């Protein structure tokens, strides 16, 4: 309960939770209701500034930007969840093998992790898109791969530290097998830093997805993605500046909220670092 009390008093954490909940609520609402159809075009009302009918204005096809920004939240959350899921799953597996087995397995796996670290999401996306068709799946995989090193190193570090701790040695002495030692004794004790890592990776995934979509390597038209909307807006900067302002603000606000949540969560779960 001390953690909950600490969390509720932590301004950064509370702010982060509020912004994150707004993002999730916006995405949820957009699945059942948006002010207009995010895909419906109207040539008569193209590139309008904010009006009462279109509070965020319209794009080059007359589509309602507010509705597209709302639906874009779904894409961002989906990419965030799946990319972090991919990075965490592979990273934790590699980190576990590396930290628990040690020796040459650790040495080889860590070199592979170093190499993967040399491939930021944008490079993996370039490579994959050269071979396969660009799309949201490619961007999720590319971003997920880029997260693997952080999760792997964190898990490995925790394993190296916990492997020699008394409760693990005692469990081993009592005859616990490897699987039990890893999954019942060590892994649960690494959860707090892993949760913090996942939370701090989430906004990075959203930024990366937006960047890849902007380059045409991620979400493809006509589906609304904040990055893709900015790419489209660039061609009409002088005619309709608001077109570029709203999707960018949505990214910045979301990333800000998630960063605050991550920082707050780290302080709450690990007061030593606060």
């Amino acid at each position, binding site marked *: 309960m001390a953690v909950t009390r600490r969390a509720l008093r932590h301004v950064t954490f509370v702010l982060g939770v509020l912004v994150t909940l707004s993002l999730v609520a916006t995405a949820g609402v957009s699945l059942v209701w948006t002010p207009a159809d995010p895909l419906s075009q109207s040539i008569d009302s193209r590139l309008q500034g904010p009006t009462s009918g279109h509070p965020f204005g319209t794009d080059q096809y007359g589509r309602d930007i507010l509705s597209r920004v709302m639906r874009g939240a779904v894409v961002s959350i989906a990419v965030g969840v799946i990319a972090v899921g991919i990075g965490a799953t592979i990273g934790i597996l590699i980190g576990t093998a590396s930290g628990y087995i040690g020796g040459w397995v650790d040495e080889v796996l860590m*070199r592979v992790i170093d*190499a993967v670290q040399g491939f*930021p999401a944008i*490079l993996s996306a370039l490579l994959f898109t050269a071979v396969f068709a660009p799309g949201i799946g490619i961007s999720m995989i590319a971003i997920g791969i880029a997260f693997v090193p952080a999760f792997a190193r964190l898990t490995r570090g925790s394993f190296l530290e916990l492997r020699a701790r008394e409760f693990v040695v005692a469990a081993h002495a009592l005859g616990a097998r490897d699987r039990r030692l890893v999954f019942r004794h060590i892994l649960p004790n690494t959860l707090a830093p892993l949760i913090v890592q996942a939370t701090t990776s989430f906004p990075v995934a959203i930024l990366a997805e937006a960047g890849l979509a902007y380059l045409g390597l991620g979400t493809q038209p006509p589906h609304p993605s904040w990055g893709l909307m900015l790419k489209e807006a660039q061609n009409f900067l002088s005619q309709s500046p608001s077109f570029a302002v709203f999707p960018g603000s949505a990214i*910045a606000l979301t990333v800000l909220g998630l960063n605050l949540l991550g920082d707050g969560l780290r302080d709450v779960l690990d007061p030593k670092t606060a």
Partner: protein
Amino acid sequence: MRRYLARRVAAFVATLFFVSVLAFVVIRVLPGDPALVILGPEVSPEIVARLRASMGLDRPIPVQYVEWLGRALRGDLGVSIQYDVPVGRLILSRLPVTLPLTVMAAGFMIAAAIPLGLYAATHHRRTGDYAAMVVSQLGIAVPSFWLGLLLILLFSVHLGWMRSGGFDGWDDGLWPGVRSLLLPAFALGFFQAAVLVRATRSSVLDVLREDYVRTARAKGVRERAVIAKHTLRNAMIPILTVAGIQLGQLMAGSIILESVFALPGLGRLALVAITARDLPVVQGVTLFVASSIIVINFAVDMLYVVLDPRIRYD
């Protein structure tokens, strides 16, 4: 120190090896038949077979890898299908854009972040600290390409002070080239500066809590000397680690800024190559950028030896 150096060099070589394997596997092995990817499905089997033979795809994969790696080590990254010139030469021709952009962004990042982080740490929990943290928090939230668009909107569309993009080259002196890269370098460096401010602040704060800093202050050493001599140098290792990682990220990030500002650098080369299915160029650029990132990280590791005598005598 010899052991430290030997381990780092071995790790460096092994990492480069794995990077080459990754670049090779994704382009040559994952697609099944790269010749089909390049030519598309509607081409006759004879033409596909001819391209396969000319690319050496009819030989076993390990043999292909060894031959490809051998050529890559000699600087031969293949020939561009689109331009029919060596990929290495294409990469070299784009470096005068990407490299200065990365260096200028890094210069801005370091010039802005280290003084601001130091100021925040030395004014811990005071207005200046909170202001620096708010700026940094906002900087981390703003995507660099959006900042680039906003800069174009302000300086090009509204004020008319700068062009919205393009590169003037280095033929007419330094200034035209630098001017073309100012806005993209600022947009690129801003995000990373925001990250580095936080790293600098937290590293300096850690050192300021050390006993030797308290001792220095107790002995009456002037605050300026405490910060410059006792704090900053010891805080530099973590700062340098973050800055080194960021240098690699700046290089990768330049790909996106080149697109925003229509700069003919490595990123644009790779993006155009993707549209043209020019696999050797995509592979060459990604291998080059990834290797550069690893070389930068290795150089940072080597710098530790200079900065921290404890590593030398380990």
